């Protein structure tokens, strides 16, 4: 039996008196699309932060394809095939879209130490970056600065940077946040188009898109798993109603 793409066992994180993640376990199989839902403050992004290595948990284990990465620094996790986008855009605003993606490529492919030759001359990286931008429909805007693009375009750039790194497990934190109906449809198609060799874990509040996209759903509240199962199972579960509607 092959190891799950992402396996979390007994994860626990406490900030002072506040428990952010409570004895949380999660198994996501290779190629799966998993949706994380839960009310604000349920601990979804905090979980992403721990998977990414922004801070270490107090207890528990995180494995990527069977490799224990609980205490590895972020860059090592990226090398194991982890990618992530952010809910709040974290782009390099004064650079061109192309350079943003090149920076992503430098992270996984090395070459960030080169002080010889201008960045604009390393054509290999540029071709790859252009491919990644074209994939999200931004090929025409490659040389525009991020500051000159629309919010919707920045959301797609965010996705392009993560995809350019060819991750095996991709964490998407609200990729549809703040988009118009038309832009949502564009991004939805992009997400559908990601090949199945990429495992995706998604946080999203747009249930129309998210429920259709996900294979399985995990409902979190107060940092712990409340319900997990297929779409129908989670929707039918009385505990789901309880979390969202109160008693």
């Amino acid at each position, binding site marked *: 039996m092959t190891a799950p793409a992402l396996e979390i066992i007994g994860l626990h994180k406490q900030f002072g008196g506040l428990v952010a993640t409570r004895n949380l376990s999660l198994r996501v199989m290779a190629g799966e699309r998993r949706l994380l839902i839960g009310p604000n403050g349920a601990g979804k992004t905090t979980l992403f932060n721990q998977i990414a290595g922004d801070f270490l948990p107090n207890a528990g284990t995180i494995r990527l394809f069977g490799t224990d990465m609980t205490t590895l620094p972020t860059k090592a996790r990226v090398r194991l095939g982890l990618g992530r986008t952010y809910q709040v855009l974290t782009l390099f605003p004064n650079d061109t879209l192309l350079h943003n993606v090149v920076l992503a490529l430098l992270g*996984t492919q090395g070459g960030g130490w080169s002080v010889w030759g201008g960045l604009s001359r390393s054509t290999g990286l540029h071709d790859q970056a252009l491919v990644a931008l074209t994939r999200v429909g931004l090929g025409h805007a490659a040389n525009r600065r991020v500051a000159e693009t629309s919010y919707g375009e920045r959301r797609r750039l965010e996705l392009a940077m993560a995809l350019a*790194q060819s991750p095996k497990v991709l964490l998407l934190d609200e990729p549809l946040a703040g988009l118009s109906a038309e832009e949502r449809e564009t991004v939805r198609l992009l997400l559908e188009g990601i090949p199945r060799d990429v495992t995706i874990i998604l946080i999203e509040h747009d249930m129309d898109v998210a429920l259709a996209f996900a294979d399985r759903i995990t409902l979190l509240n107060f940092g712990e798993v409340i319900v997990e199962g297929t779409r129908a199972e989670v929707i039918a579960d009385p505990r789901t109603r309880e979390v969202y509607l109160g008693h």
Partner: protein
Amino acid sequence: MKLSPILGFALVALTLACLPVLLPDGFYLGIATHALVFAILALSLDILIGQAGMTSLGHAVYLGLPAYAVAWLTVQAGWPPLPSVIVALLIGTLTAALFGLLALRASGLGFLMITLALGQVMWGVAYRWVALTGGDNGLRMPGRPVLLGIDLQAPLPFYAVVAVCLLAALICLWHLDRSAFGACLRGTRDQPRRMRMLGHDVWRIRYAGFVIAGFWGSVAGVLYCLDYQYVSPQALSLPQSAEALLMVVLGGAGTLAGPVVGAVIITAIKTVVSSYVDRWYSLLGLTFIVVVSLMPRGLVPGVRDLWERLRA
């Protein structure tokens, strides 16, 4: 107004070459030389401030320490000038490699405080370890040496050497700015967390930036010693670090021209003011407050914005 880089550097070189002819006498050439030495120091500090986004208040270490090293090695130890200069550069750069390990345990305000404290350590050594450093009296050089066959004693040849060093620094930093490493360094400034998530080693990128800044600061330090033929704890003091910082902030951090412009202006003000009154520190403090409050981005970006608005 997009200047081709080659043309830009040619213009700078031409200006530097014409300066000795345009200035009335050796006195002014001497002041111009001081300004260019500080321009190199300000450029080196701008690698930290402008590129890496880390404000250091201890950059005088890389001015004063190599300066002390040159003076001590040539005078006290009797070494020939060339090895002294090389070893001084090495000492400055290695100190940056050591201090970087400590200062980069923090970022932001923590980084600023640690660099300040480390700067004070070096100042303390220079001031108190009288046997080695001469204490408050400092170390004096008997004159400028002959280096690589060039007699640096007269103002003109020394000016030429400093000008060439400044040009070299400008070209190197321009290159750094547009290299992959430069892009990564700016990335760690704008989005350190994202950089980590993209697989970069943020700490190592910053550390490399810190050491490079230390090296170019040491170049300024060696030239400083040869220029003034004298070094005292003042070269390592907090006001000296602050002066360098003010040059960068005044001229405009993150630009090549900014630190040079800032260094020229501050050196000019200092020279003029100190010949009339000795309230230089008050003026330095006041300039700090005014620049930071009213012109936070500095002169060069400010003028550039104005220029673009006039053309539009």
